[in-house]
C-alpha cells in the first residue's frame, strides 16, 4: 500500500527558513570570536550570555511561528483499488482558526462524498497545535488512472492547496465490462426533506448462483428530528436469499453540509438462480419529530442552519427552542434505490466432491488416535476455513472408502464476522478400519472460486496411522468354528470374507433365577451378615462373663489374703487369749488352704485338718500337729474351758507359727 502525502507550508516557509538559518548561524558566529579570544586573551562573559539568550529567544520564536502557521495535507487510504471498492480521502488542515474544505470534489469516473470531520489538539514541547481532518469516501466507477486535482482549502485568511493525488483503479474480479459502466453498487434517495436517507451498497455487480455477496445498508438520520426506527430496514426483491441483518455501528457524518447519524447494517445475499436481478430497495420506517405546519406567512427569523435560505425545515425556531412550540411526530418511510445484480450460473463439470460451496477456503485435517486395532474408531477432524457460503460447506468426501467404515460426520461452525461469511467449519468424522491400513484415507473438498472462476479441490495430506491385527474376540470365534473353512490366505481375503456366523443356541437353563442386582443390594447378603454379627455378640457375651467371673474370684482371693495377713499379724503379737489364739491359728490354716486350692474355690469354713494336710501334702508329724491345732481350737471354741493351763507357752506359740509358716 502506498500513499501520497504532500505538505504545503506556504505561509511560513520563508519565515521559518530565515529564522532557522539565523538561529543556526548566530551561535557559531558568536562562538568564533569567543574561541579566538580564549586563545588570545580574555573576553567578557556578559557578551556571551547576551548572545545565547538572544539565540534561544529567536529559536523559540521560530518554533512558535512554525506551530502557528496553517498547513494542509491530503492522503488516500490506498492508492490502488478496484472498481466498486471504496476508499477514503483525508484532508488534514493543521493550524489555528476554522478551515473551509472543498464542498465537492468532482473527478470523472469517481464518486466522492464528504463523510464527516474530526478535530485534534496536540501539545508538543510546549507548542500547541490543532488540526481538522475532513473525510471523503471515494467510489470508482471504472478502471483507470485517476488524478485528484489540488483542492483549495481556506484556513483563516489563507488559501491552501492540497497536493495532487493519483489513484489507480483496476477491474473488479469477475465483473464484465458492460457491467462496470452502469456500476450498480449503491443507490441513494433522499426523502422526507433530506431528514433521512437509506443507502444500499452492493460491492459486486456480478455474482454466481449461491455465491454469498456481502451487502451494507446505511441509514442516515438528521439528529435534530430525534428519529426512532420503528421498522428495521429490509431488503426487498426476488431471486435471492438474504441473511439476518446485523447492526455493525453508528457514526456521525456530515453529508452535503448536513449532519447525519448514520447507522450501518451488514448482511449477505445469495442468488437462488441465474439472471439479472434488482436487489432492493431497502425499506424501513422511522418516526421523526418535525415542526408543525404553519398557516401564517413566513415571518420567522432565519435559522442558523438555513444559511442560504433554502427553506430548510430546521429553520423553524422549534429546533432552537423546542419548548416554544410543540413538534409533530410523524412516521416516514425510508427507501433506497434498488441495485442491479447479474447472477451467472456455475460452470458445468463440477468435481464429485463439490457440494455447492462458493468462496475461498483452506482445509486442515487431523486424526486421533493414530494407533488403533482393526475395528476401532478413528476421529478425523477437518477444519475448513475461509470466506464463502458456509451453509453449503459439507464434510470432505473420502476418496477411497475401501477397507473403511464411515460414520455420519458431525459439524460445528465458528464465524469470524457478524454475518457468517467468514469463519471455520469443523467436521468430525469417525472412521473405522476394517483391515490393516497405513494412513487415513485422503479427504477431498471442492468449492468454486468466483475470483478465479473455476472449481478448486482441496485434498488432505496423508496422515500415517498404525492399525494392528484383527479384533481378538473375532479370532476366538473363528477358532471355535468348525475347522472346515480353509485358513485365510492373505489380509486382502479378509475383507472379502463372508461375515462370521454367530454361535449355537444354548438349550440348558439353570434351575435358579439370576439377578442383575449387585450382591450387596440383595436381602440375602445382609441376612447372611447376621451370622457373624451373632457370633460377635456371643463372643462378646462370653468374654464379658469370663471377665466378671475372674473379677469375683480375684476379689475373693484378695479378701482371703487380707484376712490371712491380719490374723498372722495378730498371732505374732501374742496379745490374745488361748481361745482366740487357737481360733485365729486354725482360721489362718483354713484361709491358706482355700488360697492354695486356687481355682478349686474351697470355702475356708469347710476346711478341716485332713483337707488342709492333703492340700499342702504334709508329712505325718506336721499332719499330727495340724490335727492337734484344730482339736485345741475346737476345744477352746466349744467347751469354753481347757484341761491345760490358761495360757499358751511360748514353745507352743512358736510351734503353731512354724506350722503355719510351713503351709506353702
Amino acid at each position: 500500500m502506498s500513499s501520497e502525502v504532500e505538505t504545503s507550508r506556504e505561509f511560513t516557509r520563508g519565515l521559518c527558513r530565515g529564522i532557522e538559518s539565523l538561529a543556526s548561524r548566530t551561535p557559531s558566529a558568536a562562538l568564533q570570536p569567543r574561541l579566538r579570544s580564549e586563545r588570545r586573551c580574555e573576553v567578557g562573559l556578559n557578551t556571551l550570555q547576551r548572545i545565547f539568550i538572544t539565540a534561544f529567544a529567536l529559536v523559540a520564536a521560530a518554533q512558535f511561528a512554525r506551530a502557528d502557521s496553517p498547513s494542509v495535507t491530503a492522503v488516500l487510504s490506498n492508492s490502488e483499488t478496484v472498481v466498486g471498492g471504496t476508499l477514503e480521502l483525508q484532508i488534514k488542515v493543521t493550524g489555528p482558526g476554522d478551515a473551509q474544505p472543498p464542498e465537492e470534489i468532482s473527478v470523472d469516473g469517481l464518486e466522492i462524498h464528504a463523510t464527516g470531520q474530526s478535530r485534534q489538539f496536540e501539545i508538543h514541547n510546549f507548542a500547541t497545535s490543532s488540526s481538522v481532518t475532513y473525510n471523503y469516501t471515494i467510489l470508482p466507477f471504472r478502471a483507470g488512472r485517476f488524478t485528484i486535482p489540488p483542492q483549495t482549502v481556506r484556513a483563516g485568511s489563507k488559501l491552501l492547496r492540497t497536493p495532487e493525488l493519483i489513484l489507480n483503479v483496476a477491474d473488479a474480479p469477475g465483473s464484465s465490462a458492460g457491467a462496470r459502466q452502469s456500476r450498480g453498487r449503491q443507490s441513494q434517495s433522499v426523502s422526507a426533506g433530506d431528514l433521512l436517507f437509506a443507502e444500499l451498497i452492493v460491492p459486486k455487480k456480478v455474482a454466481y448462483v449461491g455465491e454469498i455477496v456481502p451487502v451494507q445498508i446505511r441509514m442516515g438520520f438528521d439528529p435534530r428530528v430525534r428519529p426512532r426506527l420503528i421498522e428495521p430496514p429490509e431488503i426487498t426483491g426476488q431471486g435471492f436469499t438474504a441473511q439476518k441483518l446485523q447492526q455493525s455501528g453508528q457514526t456521525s457524518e456530515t453529508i452535503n453540509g448536513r449532519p447525519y447519524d448514520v447507522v450501518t447494517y451488514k448482511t449477505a445475499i445469495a442468488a437462488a438462480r441465474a439472471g439479472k436481478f434488482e436487489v432492493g430497495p431497502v425499506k424501513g420506517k422511522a418516526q421523526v419529530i418535525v415542526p408543525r405546519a404553519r398557516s401564517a406567512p413566513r415571518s420567522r427569523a432565519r435559522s442558523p442552519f438555513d444559511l442560504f435560505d433554502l427553506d430548510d425545515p430546521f429553520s423553524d425556531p422549534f429546533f432552537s427552542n423546542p419548548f416554544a412550540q410543540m413538534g409533530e411526530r410523524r412516521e416516514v418511510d425510508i427507501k433506497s434505490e434498488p441495485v442491479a445484480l447479474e447472477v451467472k450460473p456455475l460452470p458445468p463439470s463440477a468435481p464429485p466432491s463439490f457440494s455447492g460451496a462458493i468462496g475461498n477456503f483452506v482445509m486442515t485435517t487431523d486424526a486421533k488416535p493414530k494407533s488403533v486395532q482393526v475395528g476401532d474408531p478413528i476421529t478425523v477432524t477437518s477444519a475448513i476455513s475461509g470466506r464463502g457460503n458456509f451453509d453449503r460447506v459439507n464434510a470432505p468426501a473420502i476418496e477411497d472408502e475401501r477397507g473403511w467404515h464411515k460414520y455420519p460426520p458431525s459439524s460445528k461452525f465458528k464465524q469470524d464476522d457478524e454475518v457468517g461469511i467468514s469463519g471455520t467449519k469443523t467436521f468430525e468424522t469417525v472412521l473405522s478400519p476394517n483391515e490393516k491400513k497405513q494412513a487415513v484415507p485422503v479427504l477431498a473438498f471442492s468449492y468454486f472460486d468466483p475470483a478465479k472462476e473455476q472449481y478448486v479441490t482441496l485434498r488432505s495430506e496423508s496422515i500415517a496411522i498404525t492399525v494392528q491385527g484383527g479384533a481378538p474376540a473375532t479370532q476366538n470365534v473363528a477358532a471355535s468354528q468348525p475347522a472346515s473353512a480353509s485358513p485365510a490366505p492373505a489380509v486382502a481375503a479378509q475383507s472379502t470374507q463372508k461375515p462370521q456366523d454367530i454361535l449355537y443356541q444354548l438349550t440348558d437353563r439353570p434351575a435358579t433365577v439370576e439377578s442383575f442386582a449387585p450382591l450387596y443390594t440383595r436381602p440375602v447378603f445382609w441376612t447372611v451378615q447376621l451370622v457373624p454379627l451373632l457370633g460377635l455378640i456371643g463372643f462378646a457375651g462370653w468374654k464379658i462373663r469370663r471377665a466378671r467371673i475372674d473379677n469375683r474370684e480375684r476379689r475373693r482371693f484378695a479378701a482371703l489374703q487380707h484376712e490371712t495377713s491380719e490374723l498372722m499379724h495378730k498371732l505374732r503379737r501374742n496379745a490374745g487369749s488361748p481361745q482366740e489364739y487357737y481360733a485365729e491359728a486354725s482360721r489362718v490354716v483354713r484361709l491358706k488352704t482355700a488360697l492354695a486350692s486356687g481355682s478349686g474355690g474351697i470355702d475356708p469354713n469347710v476346711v478341716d485338718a485332713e483337707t488342709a494336710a492333703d492340700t499342702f501334702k504334709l508329712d505325718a508329724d506336721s499332719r499330727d500337729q495340724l490335727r492337734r491345732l484344730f482339736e485345741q481350737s475346737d476345744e477352746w471354741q466349744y467347751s469354753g474351758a481347757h484341761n491345760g493351763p490358761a495360757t499358751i507357752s511360748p514353745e507352743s506359740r512358736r510351734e503353731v507359727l512354724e506350722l503355719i509358716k510351713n503351709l506353702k
Partner: protein
Amino acid sequence: MKMRASLIAFLFCALATPSLFSQADAEFAKANQEFAQGHFKEAISGYEALIHSGQWSANVFYDLGNAYFRTGDFGRGILNYERALALERHHPEATANLQIARDEAHALEIQPSSLERYLQFANINQYSVAAATAFWLAIFAMFALILKRRRSARAIAVSICCLLVLVVAMYAIFTLERGTKGQALAVVTGNDVQARLATADTANSVLALPPGSEIKILSTRGDWIYAALPNNLRGWIPAKNAERVRL
C-alpha cells in the same frame, strides 16, 4: 392363626415353585424349537415372555440375543448379549457373539479407564464378599484387641490388613458401579440415532450412534437422556432409542 397362615403360604410356595420352573422350562424349550425352525420372531416372543416372568438367566438372554441377531436387529442382539454377560461374566458364547454382532453393526464401545480395567479382574459380587469378609475379620480382631489385656501384634496386623482389603473392595465396587459396565450402561437399540447437543431433533449432532453402541446414562429429562458416549463425548439421545443393560 398367624402361624397357620404362614405355614399355608410356605407350603403353597414349596408346591408351586417346582411347577413354575417346569412351566418355564417348557416355554424355554418351545422358544428354542421355534428358533431351530427359523421362526425367529416367535422365538423372540417366547424368550421375552420368560424374561417378563422374571426367569432371568444368562442363557435365556444369550438365546434371545441370537434371535434378534437373526432378525437383523443388531442393537437388541447386542443388548441381550450384554445382559447375558452382566449375569454371567465369563459366558464364552455370549462374548463371541457379541463381538460378531458389534462387527456387523459397527457399534461403538465406551473404553474403560485403565484403573477400571485393572479393577475388572473381579466382579462387583466378588468384591462384595471380600468386603464383607474383611469387615467381619477386622471387627473380630479389633474386638479381641479391646478385650485382651495384652496388645497382640498379630491382631493389630490382621486388623490393618482387613481394613485395607475392605477399603479397596469398597472403592472397587464404587468405581465399577459407576464405570463403563456399571448400572448406567445402556445400549442403543434404534437405527440412525444421533446424539445431539440439546433436547431437540433439530439440534446439532454430536455423534452418530450405530445400533448396539454403548452409552452411559448420566441423567434423564423427559423423553431424552443425557449420556456419556464413546470417544469421550456427551450428548442427548431420545430415551426410546436406548435400553439399560441391567433390568
